[in-house]
């Protein structure tokens, strides 16, 4: 585990050469990758969301692609389409894969795409394959989608329905950097410097190995029970929550805790992991009732109260 921790420390150091701060965001993105899940990243513009994912893709030697979602984006713009190709005097249809055929896909502002386009992406996320016409094309593993959402300027958007949002393992919140971090950003990016050379820390095989290792991290029975109690509490707390989390949340929380333990160099899950991962795993899976919204409660506040109850 010491060796793995060194690996992750090196990874964070390499990312830190390009991205200042946002350690939490990088860690949670890594958790999603190791858990073989996808993440929804919510944050204001200019918080290095795209830069973080692109940098991670470089350090992990994974193919990266970016999809800028707009209301006029079609599903074929994501999955790919058939084009007519002339070869040896003959014309034939050839499948031209779309940007989804990558290892790390950044789907920017997913809530701007139409539900039809969103569903094409979601099919790829869930099934790790794409259906075009009558043909099904498998996506290259590891496959990870990081979708972003802007918490402001929601007019004319198509918010992800609850059922679709449930397919994302984590909903990561990117926050503004601290004053020191912003000072560092200014110092770094206001002077003329070339593109930073980054070392490849992980490769595809290593990523598979780490994903496998994540599932092997043991968790104590009482911690598993605490996770179960927390998730079931989201369904029982009718004075605050209209709709609670599904069993997918229980699975997701266990795996996310294991991934976090591995990233932190531990060979077991601790209560601290549950406390940290409860927020990104549950915040997009619960819907507060009117009374809670009227009181100004947020999803995170509701999760805090539930964590206190199941201690």
């Amino acid at each position, binding site marked *: 585990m010491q060796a793995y921790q060194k690996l992750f420390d090196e990874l964070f150091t390499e990312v830190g050469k390009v991205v200042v701060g946002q350690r939490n965001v990088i860690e949670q993105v890594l958790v999603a990758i190791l858990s073989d899940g996808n993440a929804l990243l919510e944050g204001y513009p200019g918080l290095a969301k795209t830069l973080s994912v692109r940098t991670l893709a470089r350090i992990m030697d994974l193919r990266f692609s970016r999809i800028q979602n707009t209301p006029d984006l079609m599903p074929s713009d994501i999955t790919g389409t058939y084009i007519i190709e002339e070869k040896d005097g003959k014309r034939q249809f050839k499948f031209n894969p779309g940007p989804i055929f990558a290892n790390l896909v950044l789907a920017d502002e997913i809530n701007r795409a139409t539900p039809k386009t969103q569903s094409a992406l979601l099919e790829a996320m869930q099934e790790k394959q794409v259906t075009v016409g009558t043909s099904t094309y498998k996506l290259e593993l590891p496959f990870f989608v990081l979708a972003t959402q802007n918490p402001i300027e929601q007019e004319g958007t198509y918010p992800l329905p609850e059922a679709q949002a449930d397919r994302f393992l984590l909903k990561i919140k990117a926050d503004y950097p601290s004053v020191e971090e912003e000072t560092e950003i200014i110092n770094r990016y206001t002077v003329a410097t070339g593109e930073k050379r980054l070392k490849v820390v992980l490769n595809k095989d290593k990523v598979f190995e780490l994903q496998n290792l994540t599932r*092997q*991290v*043991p968790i*104590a*029975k009482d*911690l598993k029970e605490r996770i179960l109690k927390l998730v079931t509490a989201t369904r029982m707390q009718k004075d605050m929550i209209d709709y609670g989390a599904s069993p997918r949340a229980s699975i997701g929380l266990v795996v996310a805790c294991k991934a976090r333990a591995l990233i932190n160099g531990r*060979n*077991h*899950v*601790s209560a601290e992991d549950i406390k940290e991962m409860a927020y990104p795993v549950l915040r997009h899976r619960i819907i507060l009732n009117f009374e809670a919204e009227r009181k100004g409660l947020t999803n995170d506040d509701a999760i805090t109260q539930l964590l206190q109850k199941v201690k």
Partner: protein
Amino acid sequence: MKTFRDAVKEVRFSLRKLAAFEIIMNMFIVFLVFYLVLLIFGAKTLYALIPTLLYAAIFSIRRMRQSASSLVEERYSTLKEKFRTAVENQYKENPVVNELQAEVMRSLRKVEESSFFNNRETYIKSGVIVFLCFLIFFFSPISLAGIFQFDLSKIIPGDGSPGALLSDEEAYPGASTGGAEQAGEIFGDEEIYGKLSVAKLGEDELFVEFNPGGHEINLRDVKDVREVEFEETYPTEIAASSGEVLEENIPKEQQELVKNYFKQLVQEG
């Protein structure tokens, strides 16, 4: 080389040994307390076993349910969460679990059995047991049932006090016959004979029969004095002689001198 499972079994066995010792000590105290209370109030002391066995059953089950992992983690914070995770996953085989078990084994070498033994509590309990034993020895010849007018033997069968098991007549046959009845006419039975009691020496019963002496005079049996003629002659075997030890061999001519000396002493004195 000891495996992790062997180490866990050893830890569980050690903790159960200590728990058993603690329960046995507490059982002694419970037994002695109840024994003392029953002894003081004259009840059958064997019934002290009932609360003792109840205590043993309840607390044994409680201690069995307490997991060894939580006890060890409480004492050794370095093993917190690790030990119980390793124990619960001891039958899994993968590199992460193996590493966790190896780490826990290294930490378990520093775990000492004595750290789970509360010396102070044990000394106090031993002192309490000794004190209770002394109290029992002290109270064993005394029964406070009479003093407090409360006889527990009426609720819980007693140790053979006559009131509980036998009637007075059955306990003391003949105690109310003959002269006793006549005397009872004048003084009342209790005043002459006192309260019938059975002397107790420890747990042994001694039946003490009070024969009222001097009261068994039956006037009907009184007869005239019988005239007896005393013989004038003494038996020949009765003879008195001076002790030879007192004889002094003083010559005859000096005997007069000794006699006059003592006469003079008498006259002067």
